[in-house]
């Protein structure tokens, strides 16, 4: 896509309604056999191609090449790649020091239509962030993977970029994910994060205008 916005294309003249042609009954159709054989030919050709030729093991079904048409993905051995941006299982994004970025603002719990997020806030005594999630639990059975929590997070603290989905279990309580299981993935920092602004205390250490070099992983939300 070029940056310059293209002018909106010219609208062609509206097309009148038109009906598809319906053809009358033909003898081959009435005679059963020819059309049945033609149908049989379709499935037979698939059969022979799939029987005699080997399958391209490319996990992307669309791009499998060759006469074999099998589109099965043999799951545990072949994993169909999730496209980038696919809404997978949640993760809590860590800060560089390993704690979650989350400040327990409850935005995700508020917007969650399934009310599957449970948060209990705690207070850091010294940290400029002040607030952290003492408990952050997601009931993955309730989660409907709508992605609104990611959109609602004002701290880039929850993402759905793990590319996996929730593992099945045999009992319900184990499917409630706490911080210990949710906190994973690379740490992320933004230049506006609080810990950049309050290195010292009194003399102002920041502002939005001051350029702070971007850190690895920044700005890829």
């Amino acid at each position, binding site marked *: 896509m070029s940056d310059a916005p293209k002018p909106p294309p010219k609208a062609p003249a509206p097309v009148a309604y038109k009906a*598809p042609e*319906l053809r009358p009954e033909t003898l081959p159709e009435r005679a059963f056999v020819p059309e049945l054989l*033609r*149908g049989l030919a379709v499935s037979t050709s698939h059969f022979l191609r799939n029987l005699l030729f080997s399958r391209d093991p490319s996990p992307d079904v669309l*791009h499998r090449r060759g006469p074999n048409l099998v*589109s099965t993905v043999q799951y545990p051995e072949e994993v169909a790649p999730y496209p980038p*941006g696919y809404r997978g299982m949640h993760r809590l994004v860590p800060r560089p020091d390993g704690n979650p970025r989350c400040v327990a603002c409850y935005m995700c719990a508020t917007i969650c239509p399934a009310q599957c997020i449970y948060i209990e806030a705690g207070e850091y005594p010294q940290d400029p962030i002040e607030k952290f999630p003492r408990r952050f639990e997601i009931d993955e059975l309730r989660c409907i993977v709508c992605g609104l929590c990611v959109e609602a997070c004002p701290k880039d603290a929850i993402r759905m970029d793990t590319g996996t989905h929730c593992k099945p279990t045999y009992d319900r309580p184990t499917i409630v994910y706490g911080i210990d299981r949710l906190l994973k993935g690379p740490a992320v920092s933004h230049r506006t994060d609080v810990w950049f602004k309050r290195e010292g205390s009194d003399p102002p250490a920041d502002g939005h205008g001051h350029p702070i070099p971007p850190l690895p992983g920044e700005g890829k*939300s």
Partner: protein
Amino acid sequence: MPNERMDVEALREDPLEAELPRRNMVINLGPSHPAMHGTVRTHIELDGETIVKADPEIGFLHRGFEKSCENVTWTQCLPYTDRLNYVSAILNNVGFTLAVEKLCGIDVPERAKYIRVIGGEIHRICDHLTMVGAMALELGGFTAFLYAIEARELLWDRVAEQTGARLTTTYTRIGGIERDLPDGFLGRLADTLTRVAELREEIDRLLTRNRIFLDRTRGTGVISAEDAVDYGFTGPCLRACGVPYDVRKAHPYLVYDRFDFAIPVGERGDNFDRYAMRMEEMRQSEKILRQAMEQIPSGPVILDDWRYVMPPKPEVYGSIEGLIAHFKIVMEGVQVPKGEVYAYTEAANGELGWYVVSDGGGRPYKLHVRSPGLPILSGLPHMIVGSMLADLIPTFDSINMIGGEVEQ
């Protein structure tokens, strides 16, 4: 009911000539039945195998869509709309957001309109493939079903690329769409469409001229144009009766007036015509998609008005203004002006109408869905009474009832 009487008098007079006592057989198709999509119970009275009376009973899948929506913010309604017609979620998303935007009086950016059309038409093809495949499956043609499902899978892969989810997309937002198309998406979509077209033509070869299929679908489930309109049919089911009504043509929305496409119209209003409508509409949708892929402009995909749209993430992370707007939208929802509108789009099965009432707050005061499936389902008894039990199946398939949408 003449069939139910026991003609005792005649029996006494002449036991051989008297009509034997008989009763109609009453059976329940559903709520759990292989051919009842969703969970619908059809209460059927049979005389032999001829249907004497039919009474569809719904509600097994009723999830209180309207009540749920009245108690969440406008944004939170979106995941609920996915689950109306879960086969073509984007069409529902688009319809809902168009309704809210109409009430807000805002217009979305050009590129967002095109992307909405692209997503919607992909899902329209998915929906039609589902219907065609299900019809083949329930008539016994398993292979055609799996070709349809294979094609649908390929399209859903593209939907997953586009929206981040295969089925429940939650893709649109008030004022635009959630994310721009990924890099190289249009190329892959073109490849997919080619492959889908191949599979579609194979289904065509397997079914369309097959005598068994023709026998099963021609002349069954017939409804006349007058009756169809009277029953509130819209979409392919109405067009199969010969009424050329399509919201995309009659009241063009988004950018549908810029595309060259035709509206297939049937003649008889039977199951075969409804099937043929779907097959033809898939071709037309592919045509629309290819045009949209050529015409799509660049630019923003969502409005820049913080009253309706969450601010861009850097603003949220770094400025109090962005953060406040973000918080207000999340906490209280988009403040939609007071008023009421009815917005309508052409969904896969007909006119999808949204009657939205706002009291000026962050939650809908009333959100009514005019699901295209409900009137069509209400016309089902009219179409099948007098035909055979086996005809119920293709008829039920050809109206493509989606439980989530009908029962809300």
